[in-house]
């Protein structure tokens, strides 16, 4: 049996779904967090032992979709024939929610209404007569509180939905038999439906505070959406998140964790004392060392996830989206593009999927293309490693990385705007500002632990495998003989990575070890750290304190052959080239256009290369008074990329102008 969860955006569907199934799908206090269908079995205590699948759907205001994710919902309830529908209604906005409810009631599928957020109503003194509402809708209605599954009507509500499966309810309102292609007839019908809803609401709802009164929350919103104060506050909040997670609390916990990992590594090496050297190298340095190097950064990622979850849960994201809209619009994006960017600090894949709520196709694709410029959680180890090893753990490295990422998003957007001829299109912005809510520490903790679990699993699978493969490839040559000391260049890894390394000479890091690390980074960005640890046998270089004692940067710089300038170039190259394959896959499915996908990959490759080139050449000129090696070939490469860009731009715009002329011609003929 399948029970679908449908309702307006931000009415608490996913929170209820999580409570009933025990899952931990992403929730947040803004409309459009859920962008895809999710299914899972109900917990035993709710299903009574039967096999019942709960289906969580994206929020929708009605059966006629406006944004792509709304379409998933109407399509599902219309065609998939769930056995029952739980219609989650935001009880604080009954008058709007019931419009969709009456449409759901017409489908011939039994509906149970969950009057969610009843606790907020109780606090605000809004009373809803449940029995009367139930009688008027001719369907069961229950007061629920999704965030408090123990003390709310959740159990009774779901039991009722299960018992109703297969029965037929008589719809209280049926749309007249009209021609659905006749716009005026549809409008008139919708109007009647709203009249019907308004009458019900007037009958069952009593409000103490009118929603038109300007309250405390409105004053706060006025400040947060103020173009100057609001943006400064947002900058301060994000800086706070990065500072706490990557400079203060995160590293504090990480130092302690790294100590444990090193002890473990020593213990493993001790156990292997009498084993062949190659086995000891593989296990102690390759596996434990490489994976340990990655896991050592876990606390930084965890702390950040915790803080971002708090932000998402309180309702701040919608305000950020509103305050950033005018700026983002200027470069051809939408205020809604901010949400993927903030989510992208955690992981690029959900960020790319979050783009679905952007209605305009061009804005949506542009955001998808650019959002991964903001460094994700997997890039934190890379930033942490380079900041620690080359810049004495300076906080500015991470700040600069995020700031540059954001700058690249702006410039990239501007570039896409120019290429695609944005000037012809109109883009509206409307965002619901949800009621503020105290963020749940429990949820933030859960979100953090969930992430930690995923991170450790990734480290123990993909990264472990990659490290092992890298270790083997660098230990053997093509004849499967162990590589002798001093002949490292004959290894399988070296011979594969060397051709790529040549391309990287103008960027200042044209050695096969660094090229190999960058390549494995496309499988998972943490691999950059893991591979470097393996190829240089430098597992302790993540320990900032130790480096300071042994002379720091110079030691590592000598081993890795990097100066501060080239280290920064290498870091930026890894941060701003295309994301991991998984994220590219997500980009592919969201863009649904090979042209855009290849455009995105090309843009990201070009950006990463150009940034690294500029940092290396200009930086070397500034510190050493001369240009770095490979300036001319690098310049030619960058010039070629610019030329391709201009060609693509011309082609796209010619096509676009043609279409526009055609459209204009039609319009003027129609007018005549």
């Amino acid at each position, binding site marked *: 049996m399948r029970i679908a969860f449908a309702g307006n955006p931000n009415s608490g569907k996913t929170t209820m779904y999580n409570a009933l199934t025990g899952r931990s799908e992403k929730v947040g206090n803004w409309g459009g967090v859920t962008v895809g269908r999710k299914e899972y079995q109900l917990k035993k205590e709710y299903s009574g032992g039967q096999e019942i699948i709960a289906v969580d759907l994206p929020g929708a205001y*009605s059966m*006629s979709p406006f944004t792509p994710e709304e379409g998933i919902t109407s399509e599902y309830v219309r065609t998939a024939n769930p056995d029952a529908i739980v219609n989650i209604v935001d009880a604080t906005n009954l008058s*709007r929610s019931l419009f969709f409810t009456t449409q759901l009631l017409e489908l011939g599928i039994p509906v149970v209404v969950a009057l969610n957020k009843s606790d907020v109503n109780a606090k605000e003194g809004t009373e809803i007569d449940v029995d009367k509402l139930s009688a008027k809708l001719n369907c069961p209605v229950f007061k629920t509180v999704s965030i408090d599954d123990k003390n709310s009507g959740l159990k009774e509500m779901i039991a009722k939905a299960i018992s109703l499966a297969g029965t037929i309810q008589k719809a209280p309102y049926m749309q007249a038999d009209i021609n659905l292609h006749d716009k005026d007839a549809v409008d008139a019908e919708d109007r009647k439906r*709203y009249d019907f809803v308004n009458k019900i609401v007037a009958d069952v709802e009593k409000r103490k505070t009118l*929603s038109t009164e300007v309250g405390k929350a*409105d004053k706060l919103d006025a400040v947060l959406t103020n173009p100057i104060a609001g943006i400064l506050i947002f900058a301060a909040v994000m800086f706070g998140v990065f500072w706490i997670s990557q400079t203060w609390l995160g590293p504090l916990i990480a130092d302690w964790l790294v100590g444990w990992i090193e002890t473990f590594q020593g213990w493993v090496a001790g156990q292997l004392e009498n084993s062949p050297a190659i086995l000891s190298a593989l296990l102690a340095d390759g596996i434990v060392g490489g994976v340990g190097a990655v896991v050592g950064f876990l606390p930084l990622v965890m702390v950040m996830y915790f803080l971002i979850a708090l932000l998402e849960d309180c309702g701040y994201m*919608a305000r950020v989206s509103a305050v950033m809209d005018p700026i983002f619009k200027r470069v051809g994006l939408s205020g809604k593009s901010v949400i993927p960017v903030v989510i992208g600090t955690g992981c690029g894949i959900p960020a790319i999927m979050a783009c679905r709520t952007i209605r305009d196709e061009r804005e949506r694709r542009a955001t998808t293309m650019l959002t991964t410029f903001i460094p994700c959680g997997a890039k934190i180890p890379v930033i942490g490693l380079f900041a620690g090893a080359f810049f004495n753990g300076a906080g500015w490295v991470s700040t600069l990385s995020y700031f540059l990422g954001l700058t690249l998003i702006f410039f990239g957007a501007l570039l896409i705007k120019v290429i695609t001829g944005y000037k012809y299109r109109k883009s*509206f*912005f409307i965002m619901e*500002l949800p009621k503020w809510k105290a963020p749940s520490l429990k949820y933030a903790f859960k979100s953090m632990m969930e992430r930690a679990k995923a991170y450790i699993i990734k480290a123990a699978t993909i990264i472990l495998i990659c490290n092992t493969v890298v270790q083997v490839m660098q230990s053997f040559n093509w004849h499967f003989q162990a590589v002798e000391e001093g002949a490292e260049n004959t290894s399988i890894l070296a011979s594969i990575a060397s051709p790529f390394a040549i391309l990287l000479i103008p960027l200042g890091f044209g050695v096969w070890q660094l090229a190999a690390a960058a390549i494995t980074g496309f499988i998972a960005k943490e691999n950059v750290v893991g591979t470097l640890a393996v190829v240089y046998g430098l597992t302790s270089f993540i320990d900032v304190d130790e480096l300071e004692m042994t002379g720091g940067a110079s030691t590592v710089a000598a081993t890795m052959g990097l100066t501060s300038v080239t280290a920064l170039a290498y870091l930026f190259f890894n941060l701003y080239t295309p994301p991991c394959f998984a994220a590219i896959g997500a980009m592919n499915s969201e863009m649904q256009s090979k042209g855009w996908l290849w455009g995105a990959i090309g843009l990201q490759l070009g950006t990463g290369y150009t940034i690294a080139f500029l940092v290396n050449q200009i930086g070397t000129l500034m510190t050493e008074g001369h240009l770095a090696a490979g300036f001319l070939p690098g310049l030619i490469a960058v010039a070629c990329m610019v030329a391709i860009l201009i060609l693509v731009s011309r082609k796209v715009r010619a096509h676009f102008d043609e279409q526009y002329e055609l459209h204009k011609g039609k319009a003027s003929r129609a007018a005549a």
Partner: protein
Amino acid sequence: MEEKMTLLDAEIGKTYTVKEINTDDDDMNSFLFRLGCYTGEPITLISKKKKSCIVAIKDGRYNLDNLLSEAIII
């Protein structure tokens, strides 16, 4: 012809009746409709900025940009 009054000309804290919605975009018009913003319905301006404003439609708060405010005739 008399200049039409749009949401841009509204006063903060005052409730108006929507006279017409004209975004030149059928989908946008019907989206606003579903939120409860259509001819004959009340709309209240809660706060206003240079490029956007916050309004109350039914029991919800929304942030609109000026392009959209301009299309809401009151």
